[in-house]
């Protein structure tokens, strides 16, 4: 073979590799779920990067944070800037890495961690790993997060190339996969997922006694790590249990958290006992799925109360009146009420909600 021919072969091969990479990228983009018509919570983690920066408070945890706390309301009433990094059934190691990842963009003054996930010492489902981790931007933090979270059947490579995970969606492709190939829709309001419909609590299943109430060692380790990371960065860590009735929060669990908080000088508040009396939650009107999650009205009540709690227990400034922030938040407020109106309209028209955007 002469030199010219070799160069030609190499050039052709390189071109082919390039086209192949492009084709695979296209397929990956096409086949990865868009989370628009279905499983919308898959959008949450990625959306954070749109509102990263300038948040004094960071909420981390599962649906008990993203369904129950409204940053808009905290801003309106207390001038508190806040962001939520929640995802469906977020486990404590997810939350920890969520915090580490956030620190790459901003250092909040207060971190609020919802303690429900202390009950899970093991990964519950591969799907929730994807919902928590796929949206995270790549960094050494994500690498560690993936390694810490993977179930046995998963591979690191499938996080680097989600095509490997989602390739079999070819039989499940829908029009949204083309429509949202390049763009997406904004679901949350600084991480808050809005639902305005009502499904009252009609019955609370009896909580079966457990054989063992102690939390898993892994959970305690991550809680320690979270506490240490906050300390190192001068962040005040606040623990909270949101006032949703299911899954049941056992007194035995609560005692362990109370002890941990007092041992470590942390604020902890369990809102369940004071939900009706102090916060004013009405379980016949303030939940959209019979007590698992609060709806908009419930979230606003809780946020009003929690804003006051934060004012009393932390040293958060009131940013109201700061021109640039007022401008930024007024846009968020507009979007917030637009979505509430759209949902109300759909509810009126169809009698039920079929999506968060009300369309």
């Amino acid at each position, binding site marked *: *073979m002469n030199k010219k021919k070799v160069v030609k*072969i190499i050039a*052709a091969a390189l*071109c*082919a590799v390039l*086209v*192949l990479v492009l*084709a*695979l990228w296209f*397929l990956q983009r096409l*086949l990865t*779920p868009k989370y628009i018509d*279905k*499983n919308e*919570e*898959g959008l949450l983690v990625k959306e954070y990067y749109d509102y990263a920066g300038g948040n004094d408070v960071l909420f981390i945890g599962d*649906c008990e944070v993203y369904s129950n706390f409204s940053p808009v309301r905290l801003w309106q009433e207390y001038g508190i800037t806040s962001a939520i990094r929640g995802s*469906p*059934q977020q486990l404590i190691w997810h939350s920890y890495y969520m915090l580490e990842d956030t620190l790459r963009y901003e250092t909040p003054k207060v971190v609020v961690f919802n303690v429900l996930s202390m009950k899970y010492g093991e990964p519950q*489902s*591969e*799907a*929730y790993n*994807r*919902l928590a981790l796929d949206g995270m931007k790549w960094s050494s933090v994500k690498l560690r997060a993936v390694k810490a979270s993977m179930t046995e*059947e*998963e*591979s690191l*490579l*499938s996080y680097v190339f989600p*095509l*490997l*995970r*989602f*390739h*079999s*969606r*070819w*039989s*499940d492709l829908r029009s949204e996969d083309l429509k949202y190939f390049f763009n997406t829709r904004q679901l949350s309001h600084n991480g808050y997922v809005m639902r305005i419909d009502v499904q009252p609590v009609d019955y609370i299943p009896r909580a079966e006694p457990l054989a063992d109430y102690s939390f898993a060692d892994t959970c305690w380790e991550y809680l320690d790590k979270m506490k240490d990371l906050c300390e190192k960065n001068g962040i005040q860590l606040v623990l909270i249990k949101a006032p949703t009735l299911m899954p049941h929060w056992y007194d035995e669990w609560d005692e362990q958290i109370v002890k941990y908080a007092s041992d470590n000088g942390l604020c902890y508040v369990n809102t369940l006992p004071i939900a009706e009396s102090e916060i004013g939650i009405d379980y016949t009107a303030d939940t959209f*799925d019979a007590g698992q*999650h609060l709806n908009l009205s419930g979230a606003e009540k809780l946020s009003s109360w929690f804003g006051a709690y934060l004012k009393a227990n932390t040293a958060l400034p009131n940013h109201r009146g700061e021109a640039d922030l007022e401008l930024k938040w007024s846009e968020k407020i507009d979007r917030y009420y637009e979505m509430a109106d759209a949902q109300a309209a759909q509810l009126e028209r169809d009698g*039920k*909600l*079929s*999506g968060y955007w009300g369309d």
Partner: protein
Amino acid sequence: MPFVSFGFIAFLAALMLLYYLVPKRFQWMMLLAFSIFFYCFAGWTSLIFMAVTILTTYFAGAVIGRMAEARDSYIKEQGAAMDRDAKKAYKAKVKKRTYLILSLCLIVNLGMLAVIKYTDFGISIVNGIFRTNIGYLRFILPLGISFYIFQSMGYIIDVYRGKYAPEKNFARFALFVSFFPQLLQGPISRFDELSQTLYGPHDFDYQNFAKGAWRVVWGFFKKVVIADRLVTAVITLSGEPDVYKGVYVVALVLFYAIQLYADFTGGIDITIGVAQMLGIKVAENFDRPFFSLNVTEYWRRWHITMGTWFKDYIFYPLSVSPKMLKISKWSREKLGQAIGKRVPVYLSTIIVWFATGLWHGAAWNFIVWGLLNCLVIIVSQELSPLYQRFHKKFRFSNTKGYNVFQMFRTFWLMGFIRVLDVYRDVPGTFRQVGTIFTTANWGDLFNGSFLELGLGWQDFAVVLAGCAAMLTVSILQNKGQVRDRLMARPPVVRYALLIAAVCLIMVFGAYGIGYDSGAFIYTRF
């Protein structure tokens, strides 16, 4: 390390790069290092068994070789002084000693294989007959042991027979036994053939490399897109025999035939393709077996290297052994010409098929599978005069249409015998096949019941398209290698096809965790 894994692809990429970068005289050492590395993934204990085979076979070969050399030079020196009988006697004396070495080597290796593979089967038989309760040993079968032991035994027998001189270099011999592409499922290579290209040196040959790569891609397609998808239905159907009777048994025969073909030939395509990319020629193991007109032909075209191994090292030596000739003589005298003539051949055939069955696995289903194959072969041998008369009398029997009928018949016959593999229960298999005649559920073909087997209609569509692709390629091969014609196309066409093939495999391959959007649902509206 399985072929279908990203680890293997990375392994290949690293090997190819180094193989063509190092000085050519080191290429085979690179191969040896990578082969050992490959095998290490199966656990270091497996490596011990392979080491035993390599060491015993190498030294046995070397000793036999030296004895033969000494014999030849002695005869040469003494040449004139020895008469024919003296030479004969001397040769016989040496042969006795080489035979001893050969036997030792065979006993150690086949004994090792027997102990690991068959002890538990033996125990189960003993327990069954004597109602004892001996505990099972549950050895873990080292990766590829049946293949590399057979390959090594072929080598030592050839050396004993003086077919070729033994390999002198220990490391080179180790590579012959451990050459990684053929470790998982063969082919069972012959030393005189493989050694011609195994040790190089090899210049990078673009044509050869590209053709090898195409074959690897084709192998992945067959394995990942067709076999690994269809295997779900095979497992479902064979897992619940009480539920899946009648038409489902017919479906299982068909599905398993396709799955096994795609998986096995796909794996061999990867093996031979990888070797070709390295400039090494590995023996073909399949010649489009489903085009066979009869069972004998099928076994010449399916798992070829195993068939020829049994033929060369068991069937022929057995049937021409002095003992067998004696039996033949005796039976001719006592049973008459017609029967007597058949005795040695059929006896050897039965023994070979029994061994073939046993080689496939230590279980009754494999033995019965082997003997059923044997039965079909013997019956068709007996009927062959009848067939010949039939073919002479009826001219349609030479038409293409009749040939297709013969292929169809052979395909299903072999298919039904093959389902013994998946039911793994001899009476159960016969019961299941019986239900085809007693269970009238052919309507299930059309009422959607087949979509409950773990595969959706989309999956069946993919399998169907894959089968169409395999059939097309097989038919095209009538006119020579498809890849030759492909390589004659302009590079743009070739690369476009290659890219499309890789994308097809990536998307339609059945690997990883299947997507079920239901698992992702958290809150429902």
